[in-house]
């Protein structure tokens, strides 16, 4: 007879469970709670219901549900929440994960395949989770002659640079991680880091295919950075500011794509090239050089690079939305928060529940986020679409496209912007 545990005894099982409970309680009392208290004494606590939330009161939300929402609200105003969750990393990673799934499924439909199908029963919606588990559990193999410090650091720095890019994007009025005066210049500085990381990662693997892919990536990114920067100058000339929030707010009546369509087209093409997407996917051309500069990366290192790539995709699409499509601006379609809940509470028959701390989000913020996400998803859709249609471009055609045609068009765009400005039609002294 084969059983999983031949010497199983119920009494010993219960004893082992109780042992574990004992140790958990002991360690929590001796180490956990003092550590939490020490942390709580250091950080600045909010004022909840008219009294300061001291560390002694910090865990009372477990017993008093009326404290939960004010504490959540106070947490949402902190920098940690902004960086980790809403306009920052978590929000972007969620959209990026959605992008990966939609890309696989949509590409399959375009090519008359089914795509992810079995994982999760309904149209393979759990495929992403399965892929993530697979990547985490796979062994990380380092090539024997690789330059180990750079090889280990490159994927992490790649994700960090992509997250820094995400931090500049304003999602709704006032909801941005880093609201700096020179936001657009900061974006240019961060974009400049990607070729360095790529070429260092490619070189450190000490292998043919990554090195060829890395050199292609370097050529492509450096030559398309110049039209990228030039194509955005038209917007800067017309708004007179480099702050991304102010640029988005300046488009309350019309988006800049109406007046600067050439700049928008040039920016979209350079965006495809910077993201290494088809038709500009020479650095990862899988039918020529295995996987390009990603060839030697394995396990979660590959997963990190993929995460960074899709964060970058989200950030570029969001930048397009902020600069050309009006950012969060749009008609107010979110209904206002019902006022009687604020004054009377929720009435359910004989029970009346008064909930302090509502509303969690303002109407402007929800509306802005809705429009921003809708526009961003639309732009991401148009970034994904060429993958089902176009073949790969040749590298000399790519370079001549970048250095001659796109730079020329970007200058045409700048002259259009200057013409509008000096004619007094638009810009800081014009209609605005």
């Amino acid at each position, binding site marked *: 007879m084969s059983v999983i545990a031949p010497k199983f005894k119920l009494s010993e099982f219960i004893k082992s469970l109780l042992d574990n409970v004992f140790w958990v309680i002991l360690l929590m009392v001796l180490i956990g709670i003092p550590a939490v208290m020490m942390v709580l004494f250091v950080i600045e606590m909010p004022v909840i219901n008219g009294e300061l939330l001291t560390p002694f009161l910090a865990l009372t939300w477990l017993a008093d549900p009326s404290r939960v929402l004010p504490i959540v609200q106070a947490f949402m105003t902190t920098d940690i929440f902004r960086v980790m969750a809403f306009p920052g990393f978590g929000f972007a990673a969620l959209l990026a994960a959605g992008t990966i799934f939609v890309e696989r499924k949509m590409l399959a439909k375009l090519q008359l395949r089914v795509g992810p199908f079995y994982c999760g029963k309904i149209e393979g919606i759990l495929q992403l989770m399965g892929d993530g588990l697979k990547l985490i559990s796979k062994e990380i193999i380092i090539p024997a002659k690789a*330059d180990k410090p750079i090889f280990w650091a490159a994927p992490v720095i790649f994700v960090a640079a992509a997250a820094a890019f995400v931090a500049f994007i304003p999602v709704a009025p006032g909801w941005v991680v880093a609201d700096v005066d*020179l936001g657009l*210049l*900061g974006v240019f*500085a961060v974009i*400049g880091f990607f*070729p360095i990381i790529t*070429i260092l990662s490619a*070189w450190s693997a000490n292998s043919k295919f990554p090195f060829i892919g890395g050199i292609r990536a370097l050529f492509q990114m450096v030559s398309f950075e110049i039209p990228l920067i030039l194509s955005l100058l038209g917007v800067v000339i017309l708004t007179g500011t480099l702050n991304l929030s102010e640029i988005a707010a300046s488009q309350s009546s019309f988006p800049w794509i109406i007046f600067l369509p050439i700049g928008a087209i040039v920016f979209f093409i350079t965006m495809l090239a910077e993201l290494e997407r088809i038709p500009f996917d020479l650095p990862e051309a899988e039918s020529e050089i295995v996987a390009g500069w990603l060839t030697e990366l394995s396990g979660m290192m590959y997963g990190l690079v993929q995460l960074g790539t899709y964060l970058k995709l989200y950030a570029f699409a969001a930048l397009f939305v902020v600069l050309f499509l009006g950012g969060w601006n749009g008609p107010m379609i979110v209904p206002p928060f019902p006022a009687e809940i604020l004054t009377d509470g929720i009435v359910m028959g004989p029970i009346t529940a008064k909930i302090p701390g509502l509303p969690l989000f303002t109407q402007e913020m929800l509306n802005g986020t809705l429009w921003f996400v809708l526009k961003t998803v639309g732009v991401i859709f148009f970034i994904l679409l060429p993958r089902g249609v176009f073949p790969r471009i040749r590298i*000399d055609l790519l370079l001549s496209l970048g250095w001659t045609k796109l730079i020329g068009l970007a200058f045409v765009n700048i002259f259009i912007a200057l013409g509008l400005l000096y004619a007094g039609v638009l810009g800081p002294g014009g209609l605005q």
Partner: protein
Amino acid sequence: MADAAFLALTVITIGSAIAALELRSLIYGSIALMGTLGGIAGFFLLLDAPFVALFQLAVYVGSIAVLILFTVMLVKRELIFKKIEDKRRKFAGIGLMLIVMVALGAVFIDSGIKTITTDEPAVDFRDIGTDFVTYYWPALILMALILAGSVTGALVLAKREDVENDQRTS
């Protein structure tokens, strides 16, 4: 706070500059050079000139360091360097550096830098632009001409003569 940041930036900048000169691996040397250039960007940030700092990052770290890396990766080190190294050269180099630093320091201290006020607000980049097209326009024209000349020169140098016309792309 600013003092701690200043000290940290100084250590990073000078340390990575020394590392850039002394490291045997050229790749690590150029990474250290990136550290130096980034440290200088940090100094500009401390001096309330974020515009210059971000351009320092975008141009020097983002482009020039990439070109240096690229050159280093494609060139065999043994072919371009002949190792001539002895004690006398080393000490002469250190002495020369000290003399230059003392001279530059004397010039800086003598130039009235101690009497400037340091609590001015940061200069707006719009003012820089306005100054460039009004008072300093000859400098702007000169820079534009130099840039145009160098771009034209680079294009002339890059034009290959050995490629047949039918091999060119349209």
